[in-house]
């Protein structure tokens, strides 16, 4: 029976779980070395997520853009592309959605969808460029997307600084008709910043699953990801699918930015450095094995870690960066799943030897 677990579908579940376990174990060792009590640290971390409805609401709020950036990375990954540019796509999505939220006057039923759509389109455009360069000039998408991240940050900062600065480092607040903020969800969670975007994020998970697994186009995208040459031989246009995949991926990222702009902050601000929401998306997608449900769960884990880190510092005196270390190590362990498979195969062959 054990055999089947590791060989079958469930092995996909075993690797992330072992990676998470290793990650937390390493975190505990680091706390021990740095003179902290790991048990107190982790208790404070868990309480920082579940201990108060406010914390829980904030965790769900933090999850929301992480789900989108995870979906964005995963969608491109299914077509065999690594979209490191989610960060930049998210930044332009954030900015453009806020721009629409401020400048346009319309009833909510038009304004809100329009603002989200504008953010998604901006992100799609930012993904379209590396997609075209990959399809047309065979330029590796990783380098182009990294460069596009910096271009996004500097260009957005330029526009905010020169045309939209309201007070300090930020733009004006968006009109209420474009806001995702929810008094209901906020009151429900002890006045956290939880907003309707969380429900949209869940819907986005379903949308990705539907596109990839229930439509003809989704089949093509995945097919190109499995084997370019076979797909081309079967009459699919590899180049068109690459461009489409990067654009849809960018749209998910841009919509994620819209959630931050229209839901969490209701404005955009000059970014001194990256938000890291996009880069965290790589971790989310990787741990979630690029599946909708996996992305939802790992976004909850990472959102929770980041939220709980505050309480961990306040209550147990552990620096919040410990969480970043744990996340980095989880990525290493998932990426090195070869190690986990290798250890398992050794254990297995020993057993069979007896």
């Amino acid at each position, binding site marked *: 029976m054990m055999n089947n677990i590791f060989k079958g579908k469930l092995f996909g579940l075993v690797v992330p779980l072992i990676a998470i376990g290793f990650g937390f174990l390493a975190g505990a060792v*680091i706390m021990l070395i*740095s*003179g902290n009590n790991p048990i107190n640290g982790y208790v404070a971390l868990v309480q920082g997520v579940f201990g108060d409805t406010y914390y829980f609401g904030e965790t769900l709020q933090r999850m929301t853009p992480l789900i989108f950036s995870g979906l964005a990375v995963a969608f491109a990954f299914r077509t065999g592309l*690594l979209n*490191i540019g989610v960060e930049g796509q998210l930044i332009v999505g954030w900015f453009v959605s806020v721009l629409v939220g401020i400048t346009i006057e319309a009833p909510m039923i038009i304004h809100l969808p329009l603002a989200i759509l504008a953010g998604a389109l901006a992100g799609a455009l930012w993904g379209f460029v590396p997609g075209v*360069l990959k399809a047309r*000039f065979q*330029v*590796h998408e*990783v*380098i*182009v997307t*990294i*460069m*596009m991240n*910096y*271009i996004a940050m*500097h*260009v957005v*900062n*330029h526009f905010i600084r*020169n045309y939209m600065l309201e007070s300090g480092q930020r733009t004006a607040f968006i009109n209420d008709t474009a806001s995702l903020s929810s008094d209901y969800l906020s009151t429900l969670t002890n006045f956290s910043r939880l907003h309707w975007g969380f429900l949209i994020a869940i819907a986005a998970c379903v949308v990705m699953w539907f596109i990839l697994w229930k439509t003809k186009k989704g089949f093509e995208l995945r097919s190109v990801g499995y084997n370019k040459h076979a797909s081309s031989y079967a009459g699919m246009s590899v180049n068109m699918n690459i461009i489409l995949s990067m654009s849809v991926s960018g749209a998910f990222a841009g919509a994620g930015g819209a959630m931050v702009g229209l839901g969490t902050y209701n404005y955009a601000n000059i970014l*001194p*450095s990256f938000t890291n929401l996009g*880069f965290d998306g*790589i*971790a989310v997608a*990787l741990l979630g094995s690029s599946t909708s449900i996996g992305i939802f769960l790992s976004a909850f884990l990472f959102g929770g870690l980041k939220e709980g880190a505050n309480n961990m510092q306040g209550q147990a005196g552990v*620096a919040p*960066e*410990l*969480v*970043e*270390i744990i*996340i*980095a*190590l989880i*990525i*290493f362990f998932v*990426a*090195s*799943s*070869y*190690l986990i498979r290798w250890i398992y195969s050794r254990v297995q062959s020993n057993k069979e030897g007896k």
Partner: protein
Amino acid sequence: MDMILPILYTIVPAALIAATPLLLTAMGGLFSERSGVVNIGLEGLMVMGAFAGIVGTLFFESLGFGAASPWMGILVAIVLGSIFSLFHAVASISLRADQIVSGVALNFLAVGLTVFIVREVFERGQTDTISARIFRINVPFLSDIPVIGPMFFSRIYVTTYIAFALAILVWYVVFKTPFGLRLRSVGEHPMAADTMGIKVNRMRYIGVMLSGAFGGMGGAVYAITTAGNFAGGTIVGQGFMALAALIFGKWHPFGAMGAAVFFGFAQALSISAQQIPGLANVPQVYMLILPYVLTILALAGFVGKAEPPKALNQPYEKGSR
């Protein structure tokens, strides 16, 4: 001319100083990528180097090493950078992890680990400021040459000259020695190299660790000469810009050198464009995005095609086809 020369006297040294950490780190990236291992983790290696450089300097200052402390700090950064790069090496060479994902994780880990240690040791988000610095110098005799002297030999850090000398050394090692030939061969065609008796994975470990040493040195030089202390925001994007310089320079030491100097100019211009007639009205944003736009154009073949090493991003498994 009377207008332009004084401006060049400020901008050229500033550009060379800004280019120094990029050049050093790009040389690191060159060793790793020429051996066939993508190194998105250069940024993280620079973070680790900046941290080690500052903490090392502070440590040796406290022991009374005085003016030698920053140099000891750089040495610490080189050692720690190459040790830290082992994370990337083990994951992407031995455990066949995706090299890009592993590099991304390295960047996360570097920031998390260093800021965590800084918070535990200094009990705030940044280190103390170092007092023993590497100072800008005028090169004797050379700085007296008219025009060239004030541009290239005045008010520049020694580390800048060291970086350029190292780049020439890297060119010699990579293109004129048996070691360099082996390194390049495992990056182009590992199976052929293996057949000739070259240990592919060992060469790749050396390549990645050299990238750690150079990246660490680049980070330390930036932190010691320009920043003066270390915090989570000390290195923001220089590592990626070094990667851009490497690619824009077509994976060649002199190409990367030219690109690093060019990016240094863009950086210096973005700061002092206001004083330059004709550039004062150009928005700063153009200078800021120039390096990145040029890199994309270079990759797309508009500025000469940039061809990566053939086996880049492919783990090598003995006996596989």
